[in-house]
């Protein structure tokens, strides 16, 4: 079972990764976007950490509603609504509970992904965060249904997210700013897929 505390650790771990990788994310966004993905995510996750510091939450739903709203209200750009919706839907799916079993966790993540799809309409191969998140959740589901532990399943998910992130390099972008570059988007790693891989990696480190 994953406790509220572990979920908070996950968010803090993600925030720490984002802060650490801020310049790297911005560098990726410079190549095929507008050089703000690192600043955007760092600003948003710093606000999330401030909210976690200021307040405690009595349910997973309440926690992630706050996280999602905070991101929506502080990030802006494409990543604000996308990550915001991801966490909002995660919270709604999780509901007013204080812990999640692996299936509920996987289901909440899947709901988050569906939120991203509803907002941004990314498809596989569009060179977006979808290309890291979707294979990660497929790997999670597969591992869990083959009886793996949550730890192992999340490790598999993280590996899949990393692979999905790497697979964005040769893709021709069809969504987001990188799509404006046409052919010139090929050969660069997508910044959103990169931050999403950090999110899944943080889960593997903290939720298992």
């Amino acid at each position: 079972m994953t406790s509220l505390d572990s979920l908070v650790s996950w968010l803090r771990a993600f925030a720490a990764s984002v802060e650490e990788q801020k310049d790297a994310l911005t560098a990726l966004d410079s190549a095929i976007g507008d050089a703000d993905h690192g600043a955007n995510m760092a600003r948003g996750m710093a606000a999330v950490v401030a909210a976690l510091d200021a307040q405690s939450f009595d349910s997973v739903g309440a926690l992630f509603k706050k996280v999602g709203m905070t991101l929506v209200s502080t990030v802006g750009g494409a990543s604000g609504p996308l990550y915001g919706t991801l966490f909002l839907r995660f919270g709604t799916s999780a509901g007013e509970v204080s812990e999640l079993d692996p299936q509920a966790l996987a289901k909440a993540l899947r709901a988050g992904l569906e939120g991203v799809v509803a907002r941004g309409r990314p498809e596989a191969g569009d060179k977006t965060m979808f290309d890291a998140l979707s294979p990660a959740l497929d790997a999670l589901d597969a591992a869990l249904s083959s009886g793996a532990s949550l730890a192992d399943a999340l490790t598999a998910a993280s590996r899949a997210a990393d692979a999905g992130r790497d697979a964005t390099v040769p893709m021709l972008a069809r969504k987001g700013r990188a799509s404006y570059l046409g052919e010139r988007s090929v050969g660069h790693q997508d910044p959103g897929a990169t931050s999403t891989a950090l999110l899944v990696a943080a889960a593997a480190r903290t939720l298992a």
Partner: protein
Amino acid sequence: MKKLINDPDSVVAEALRGMALAHPELRVDHENRIVFRGDAPVRGKVGLVSGGGSGHEPMHGGFVGPGMLDAACAGEVFTSPVPDQMVAATQGVDGGAGVLHIVKNYTGDVMNFEMAAELVETEVATVVVDDDVAVQDSLYTAGRRGVGTTVLLEKIVGAAAEQGRPLAEVADLARKVNDRGRSMGMALTSCTVPAAGQPTFDLPEDEMEIGIGIHGEPGRRRVPLAPAREIAEMLVEPVLSDLDFTSAPVICFVNGMGASPLLELYLMYGEVAALLEKAGVRVARSLVGPYITSLDMAGCSVTLLRADDDLLALWDAPVRTPGLRWGA
């Protein structure tokens, strides 16, 4: 990075502070980073709200005032504002006749405005500006960017709202302007996003980017530096081949990207006008200057709008904003 700033993180807030002091006729909501008309909401008038990332000044805050926008939301540099801002702006300009959201077609802007529209009670219509011919249009992509036409649209639609036209009509007019506007831009240099601290891309002394947007994204292609005459051709040709501009009076807008001085922009306008004349395009009105910029990028863009009598009359109508002002 050489800029007249204190701290990369406070650029937007501090610029808004200066703008509020320089323009007491406007009202600035510093918490929400919104520039309002001083007399907003105007009863019975459709409210016009726009906004987007900062770094494009005077757009949008500098286009707030009688005859143009009622409010503009300022995001972080090159980052769409958040829904909270758009909600506050929409409520703040709601004079009972509904509100039009003018949104440039960037994923972030579109999504954030969408979320805001879902959150307010006010009747909201939305126009998404997507006039950049550098980007191929397709249902399966993010589509074209919104660039120069936004300025012309805000002016024209602002005049229509000022006349008291109802929301549906104002929104239709906005879509009409968007349908008839096309732009193409280029960069001589990259811009530097304050928080990034270094140029978004490297551009050697003898090269330039063609098909650039307004966020320092690299363009569609990199070509050797060329004289103004050839640059004008590279911008005008794709615009003219995208839409027929020969059968109606045209508004021609040569825009500076921020660091290109007016001397060069007028020179470019001369080249553009010569090409248009050769192509049988009749320029009825023109606008030359840095109106939709990309921080400290050097370069320019060309926007053509296929006008008609109504659009020209609305263009000529009085406007009183920091960025565009005539007849008032």
